Each structure stands twice: as C-alpha cells, then as structure tokens.
C-alpha cells in the first residue's frame, strides 16, 4: 500500500516538474518572431486576392461558408466567424489591414500582451471563413499563435523589451501593471505550460500523421515518395530524378513513416532528440523545396523549435549577435533575485 502511495506521490511530483518548472522565454520569443512573420505573409498573400476568398462573390461565399458549419448539411459544428456577416469590401479591407498590422506587431514584439491573443483570434476568424482553402500551414500557425499568447513571449528579442529597458533607465523601476505589459525575461511557469502544450500537440500531429500513413500500402512498399514527387501540382523543384534510384526513394519513404510515428517517443530523450530534430529539418526542408509548400515546411521546422532549450537559444543568439555568452545585467539580476 505504501508503495502505491509513494508511486502516486512521485507521479504528482513528476507532473508538477513537467508542467510547472519556471522556464526562460527565449525559445518562445524566437518562435513568436517566426510565427508572426508567417502570419504576416499569409495575410499579405490573402490581401493580394482578398475578395476572391472573403468577398460576397468569393469562391466559397459567405452564405455557403456559414452553411458548411451551421448544420444545414448535417451535424453543425462550433466553428464560427464574424467574417460570415461582412459583405462590404471596405469592411473586409479594414479587417485585413488590422490582421496585417497585428501580425507585424507580433513579429516585432510590440504590445505583445495584446497583439498575441489578438493575432490568434483574428487568425481563428479567418480560418473559419476560409473553409475549403486551408491546409497544414493554417493548422500550425493557429496552433502556435494559441500557445504563444499564453506566455510572455515578448519579454525578449522584442520592441517591448527595448521599451522596458528605456523605461527602466528613465524611472528606475516599473509599476506591477507596466511590468505586466513589458515583462522581464525571467523564467516563468507560463512559458513552461505554453511550451509543453506545443510540444505535446506536435507529438500528436506526428503520431497521427504516421498512423495514417501506416494505413496506406505505398508507405510500406516504398513508393510513396515517388508518387509525392510525381505529383505535378505539388512540384516546385523537379524531384523525378529519384525514379532512377528506387532504393533511395524507398529508404526515404520508410524513414519518413518511422520517424513520424515514433517522433512522440524519440524526441524526449536527450540522446535521440538531436537526430529527431535534424530529421525534421531534413524532411520539412525537402517538402519546402520540392513539394511546393515552402510555408508549410518552414512552419513545421519552427514548431519543432519548441524542443530547443531556452538556455541554448539564449546562448546561441548572444553568440551570433556578437555579444558575450553571459547574461545581460537585467537577466543576471532576475536570475539571482528571490523571484527569479
């Protein structure tokens, strides 16, 4: 009985350690920059043909988009968008301008406490309106924006951090309210929760991606990569030369399904993590280069960044920036304060 009680206590302690160990925001800050940039790009591209996708005579018009969610053709779903009610071109353009501004602010880390949740919400409204024109890119950007808004991801590598430093120089200290708007780059539980949710979500994506592939015979006989390369509509760089190297494309096919299915287990141990992440970069880089989905390939690589330790990110960027690997005075102060 004691053993059971001890196991229970140990499990709770492990759970607490996994979810509630304060964590530095540096990795999430880099993911914020990349996600903001991707959102900005997707909103700009949508703006280039806005009324064909959101207008009253769009490919899928407002009434049809609404009817695909409201139960007209079967069970309804809870997906909802106020864009279903906007027919005015001026209103749509104003909304798109707001989406572009907010995603630019997220990328730059300006008023991140406001712009991160706003970027997620606007993205959510757009994806529920764009039914039929969506793909994996939209799933990933919405997911990343959702987790970023849970954490002070603008605490570093951001305009918020610049403003904070200037205010500190001028005032010496910040009120709790200003401190919340312009957070210091200290380890927090919020960063840990946001990171863990992102990591586990990514594991779910890969696990089911692998399980689905396991239902298809081409992933077993090794021809799936050939048939992906032979898809003319996806092709961006010609990969059909692999036809002359069947062993190569069959091996790459088997590696892909093995890596995808077991990602959720192999990404956690420190021993296997570098190989798993390197494979992610290779496979998604290949998709970006050859299969015409540069945006999707890049955002998957960005999402894999969730598994990079924030300390490692901080050291890497400090070194790349030509600075010392040591922490900044503020980071040192935070790290050594009773709260840090």
């Amino acid at each position, binding site marked *: 009985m004691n053993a059971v009680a001890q196991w229970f206590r140990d499990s709770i302690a492990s759970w607490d350690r996994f979810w509630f160990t304060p964590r530095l925001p540096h990795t999430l800050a880099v993911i914020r920059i990349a996600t903001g940039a991707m959102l900005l790009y997707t909103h700009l*591209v949508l703006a280039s043909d806005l009324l064909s996708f959101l207008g009253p005579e769009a490919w899928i018009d407002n*009434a049809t988009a609404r009817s695909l969610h409201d139960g007209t053709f079967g069970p309804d779903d809870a997906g909802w968008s106020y864009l279903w009610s906007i027919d005015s071109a001026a209103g749509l353009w104003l909304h798109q301008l707001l989406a572009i501004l907010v995603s630019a602010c997220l990328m730059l880390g300006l008023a991140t406490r406001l712009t991160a949740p706003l970027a997620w919400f606007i993205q959510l409204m757009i994806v529920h309106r764009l039914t039929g*024109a969506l793909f994996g890119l939209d799933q990933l950007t919405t997911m990343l924006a959702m987790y970023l808004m849970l954490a002070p991801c603008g605490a570093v590598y951001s305009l918020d951090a610049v403003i904070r430093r200037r205010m500190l120089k001028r005032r010496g200290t910040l009120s709790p309210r200003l401190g919340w708007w312009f957070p210091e780059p200290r380890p927090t*539980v919020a960063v840990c929760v946001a990171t863990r949710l992102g990591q586990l979500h990514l594991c779910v994506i890969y696990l089911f991606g692998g399980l*689905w592939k396991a239902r298809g015979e081409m992933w077993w006989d090794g021809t799936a990569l050939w048939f992906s390369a032979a898809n003319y509509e996806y092709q961006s760089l010609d990969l059909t030369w692999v036809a002359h190297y069947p062993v190569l494309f069959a091996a790459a096919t088997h590696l892909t399904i093995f890596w995808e299915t077991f990602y959720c287990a192999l990404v956690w141990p420190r021993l296997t993590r570098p190989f798993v992440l390197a494979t992610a970069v290779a496979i998604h880089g290949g998709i970006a280069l050859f299969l015409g989905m540069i945006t999707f390939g890049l955002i998957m690589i960005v999402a894999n960044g969730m598994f990079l330790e924030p300390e490692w990110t901080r050291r890497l960027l400090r070194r790349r920036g030509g600075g010392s690997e040591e922490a900044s005075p503020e980071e040192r102060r935070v790290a050594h304060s009773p709260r840090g």
Partner: protein
Amino acid sequence: MPLEKRSDGTHPTRWWRLALSVLIIGHLWAVIGRPIEFATQGPTGPSPAGSLFYAPVRGYSEAAFLNHGYAFFAPNPGPSHLIRVEVPSEEGEPRSYLYPDLSRQWPRLLYHRHFMLTEFFHNTYQPAQIPPELAEDPIVVERWALDRQRHEAIRGSIRRHLQRAHESNELTFHRVEHQLAGLPEFLSQQLRLDDPQLYIDLPDDEPEFRLRLRRDEPTEPQAGSLPRFGAPPQGDEARPMRGNFPGSGR
C-alpha cells in the same frame, strides 16, 4: 491572475496547480479527440468508442480549430483534382482555363489556396443520382441527399465566382483528375508529369467508377500478372480518405 504571476520563482500554490492541471488535461483531450475520432473511421462509419471519446470536447475543439485528422499525404499520396473552366468566345472555340495554374496565381501560397479549393470541391462531390444498390437504405439516402445538397451549394458558389471573374454567365466547369504517372511508364515511355493522357474529365452527371473503367481498359493487367513496382494503384486505392470536409484542414 496570469500564470507567470503565480510562479514567483517557486511553484504555484497547490490549488493553482490543480486548477491548471484540469485545464491542461481538458485541452489535451481536445487536441487528441478529433484525430482519434478521425482515425477510427471505417467503411461503415466512425467507431462508436472514438465518437464517444471526442463528444465532450467536440465544441471546444471545433471552435478553437483543433479538429484535424493530420492525415498528410495519407494513407497514400493520391492524384490531384482540378477544375477546368470553359468560357464561350465570339471566335467560336471556347477559352479554357485550368485551376490551379501557377502562371496565373502567384505567389505559391496563393496558388496553393486555389489548389486546396479545387481539392475541396472534388472531395465534397456526391453523384447526382444515388447508385441503385444503395437506394433501398433510407439512412444512406438521407445522407446522400444532404451531401449532394452540400456539393450543389459549393458548386453554385464557385459558379457565381467564376462567372464574375470571367465575365460570362455562359461558362461551364467540371472537375478534372490529374493522375499520377507510374514509375514503369515514367521510365519506359519518358512520360511527362503533365502528359495530356494523365488528365481525365469528371463530369458531374457520370458516376466516377465508369470513367475509371474507361481509362483503365487499355492498360488493364493480364489475368495472372502482377503489378510492377511503382505502378499506380487502380481505382479507389489511389484516393486519399475522405473526411467530412477534407481541404478544410481536417
């Protein structure tokens, strides 16, 4: 109170941890619920256990756009589905446009949005007439009627868009399947990926299986012979599994 306010360099209080744990578990349930429901579908419909597992978190999952199956290029990479538009012209020969088209939709992301739309249009297709062998089952008939109405609603929306875009009320359009080149044909015949013989028209009123038979006839393997390595799969094996709204991110 915001999460990080509770950290204070130590753990949040026990009650905060408990409350957060409940929220975390609920969210993770929603993250995994739809993939489980989607993966546990078979030819006869979804598994009752999979549906039951997903039901409590369905609303949250749908509202937060977490409801995806993550079946990328699965179970098999399949052919592409396009839309061909024929616009009557005064010169006599109608002008023909294929969607998506890299030469007219740029950058690549815009092209890909059009590609997803044409795939979506195909994936929501239901034949105009229900096959006679299925017409006896009232549940199947009801489902088919709703699915057909949905396809017609989408078709109507696309028609209105194309009429405005091409400034013609007389235009016609239909689905086109761009089949994948098999490895043997590609190597032996030097077949180009955009060879015209790989495109087959899919008119709205003709059942797809008849079209497939027609195309498959000349190349059907002899009895007793085995398909060669890299030969394209026949019939429905080549097609991705259909969800409720493939192309909408599921």
